[in-house]
């Protein structure tokens, strides 16, 4: 029953969405990322498959910050992995500008940071931030590295090893590494997910400041509503089983956003509404399972 209702709603959305999508081939591309009718199945046992994403349409404009918000298992990380070229869609297309993700990755156009910082334990913080230069076989731009370390407040720790840093500092180093080659798009998968609430909030404020500097197109995957609302231009609310886009909410708080925003009633209002939207989707889940 609920399935048909959702299908109906999605078909209505489908009717509206492609109107923007179709003439795109002729017009100059202004999107940093475009997912068109993307389905992703993961094979389970013989013949069976788990549908992680069901007909996802999603765009990120150049210079836009979009947050994917949803319960665990809604496929938001899968969307990010598709955008990073780490997975291929079962059907549909994923384009970064005019190119496929793997092509963009090969020209070092992606910046990624994950929940697990993935710094190289044997290299210093500075050497870790310089890794993208080495991968690109370019001469390491030491000024750029120093600049990034300053941006994330790790100048004093340039020669420290990752294990000497706190969790928050490791994540900052990981974000500095993602920014090293001025990526066309920044993909952040729960970068602060493993941090305590206070550190997380502080890093959100820092990330907002870093982002305000050059407005790199960004996709942030998160399950923290506050984080999504504070950082993003648009918040995409997803539901699970299978992963679908439920709602896209434009967040029009003025930029640069100040920490005071976190205390304002308007902010809390939006957070509450999106939390409710998330909750509703989990309720649909419960009904489906029941």
């Amino acid at each position: 029953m609920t399935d048909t209702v959702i299908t109906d709603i999605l078909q209505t959305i489908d009717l509206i969405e492609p109107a923007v999508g179709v003439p795109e081939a002729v017009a100059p591309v202004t999107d940093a990322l475009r997912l068109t009718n993307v389905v992703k199945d993961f094979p389970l046992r013989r013949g069976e498959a788990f549908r992680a994403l069901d007909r996802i349409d999603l765009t990120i404009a150049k210079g836009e910050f979009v947050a994917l918000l949803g319960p665990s298992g809604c496929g938001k990380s899968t969307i990010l992995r598709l955008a990073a070229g780490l997975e291929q869609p079962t059907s549909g297309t994923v384009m970064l500008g005019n190119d496929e993700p793997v092509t963009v990755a090969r020209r070092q156009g992606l910046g990624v940071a994950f929940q697990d910082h993935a710094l190289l334990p044997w290299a210093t913080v500075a050497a870790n931030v310089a890794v993208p230069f080495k991968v690109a076989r370019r001469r390491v731009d030491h000024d750029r590295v120093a600049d990034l370390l300053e941006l994330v407040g790790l100048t004093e720790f340039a020669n420290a090893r990752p294990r000497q840093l706190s969790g928050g500092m490791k994540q900052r180093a990981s974000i500095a590494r993602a920014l090293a080659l001025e990526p066309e798009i920044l993909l952040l998968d729960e970068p602060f997910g493993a941090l305590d609430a206070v550190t997380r909030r502080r890093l959100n404020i820092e990330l907002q400041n870093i982002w305000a500097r050059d407005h790199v197109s960004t996709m942030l995957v998160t399950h923290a509503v506050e984080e999504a609302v504070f950082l993003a231009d648009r918040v995409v609310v997803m539901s699970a089983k299978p992963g679908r886009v439920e709602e896209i909410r434009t967040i029009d708080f003025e930029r640069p956003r100040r920490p005071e925003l976190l205390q304002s009633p308007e902010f809390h209002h939006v957070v509450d509404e999106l939390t409710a939207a998330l909750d509703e989707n989990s309720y649909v889940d419960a009904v489906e399972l029941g």
Partner: protein
Amino acid sequence: MTAAATSNERAVSTAYGVAGLLAFMAIWEAGGRSGLLGASFPPISEVIEYLIDPTRRSLFERAVSATFVSAVRGFLIGAGVAVLLASIGALLPAARDGLDRFVASVHAVPLIALGPLFIVLLSRDGTPAAIASLAAFFPVYVASAAGFDDTSRTHRDVFSALGASRRIRMRLLQIPCALPSIADGLRLAAPAAVLGAILGEWFGAPRGIGILIVSSMQNFQITQLWASALLAAAISLSAFGLFGMLERFVVGRVR
């Protein structure tokens, strides 16, 4: 705090090791002196006395240096080829399964069966090093292959998203990641190379500890047999200990 704790633990474990060794030697001494273990079991003091006797010094020196040189040559060749093949397997996934199977088959052939073959193919001088290299090859191959695979998923993801080529990934990620594992393999390979060299000498090398052992057996020189065995064990254990230190150093650098 923790550093002190670990050095304390190390001191305790060293103390246990020394105590164990002393107890072992005491039992050996008592067993030999009482004659309970038979005529072929001389007390350890007699063996050591035999070993350090100045008149036999050149005999043992020549044997040890011959075995040592063969073991080192074999170790270098075996470990080098092992790391090379494992790297090829890591760079060319298509070759990996075949390489693994090839290595397993080589390892399945008893080294003792290869001795006569090497005598024919190589020479009497070359056989100990050849068998030593085979003995060292297997642990190093297994450890290197596992080491190159031992990267975390997010590390691989980061390198993929950065568009890293296989060679760059190998150089920046897999090799540093594999170093502790390779050092561990070398630690196991070092005594294996010593034993391989001794085994190779049995087939008729001109000199070496293996020859000493064979001739002592044939001439019923019990004390000399034990002295040779003790020497072989001492060399093996020193090699093991030396590479254990290398491994600890590498782990400290990489992790």
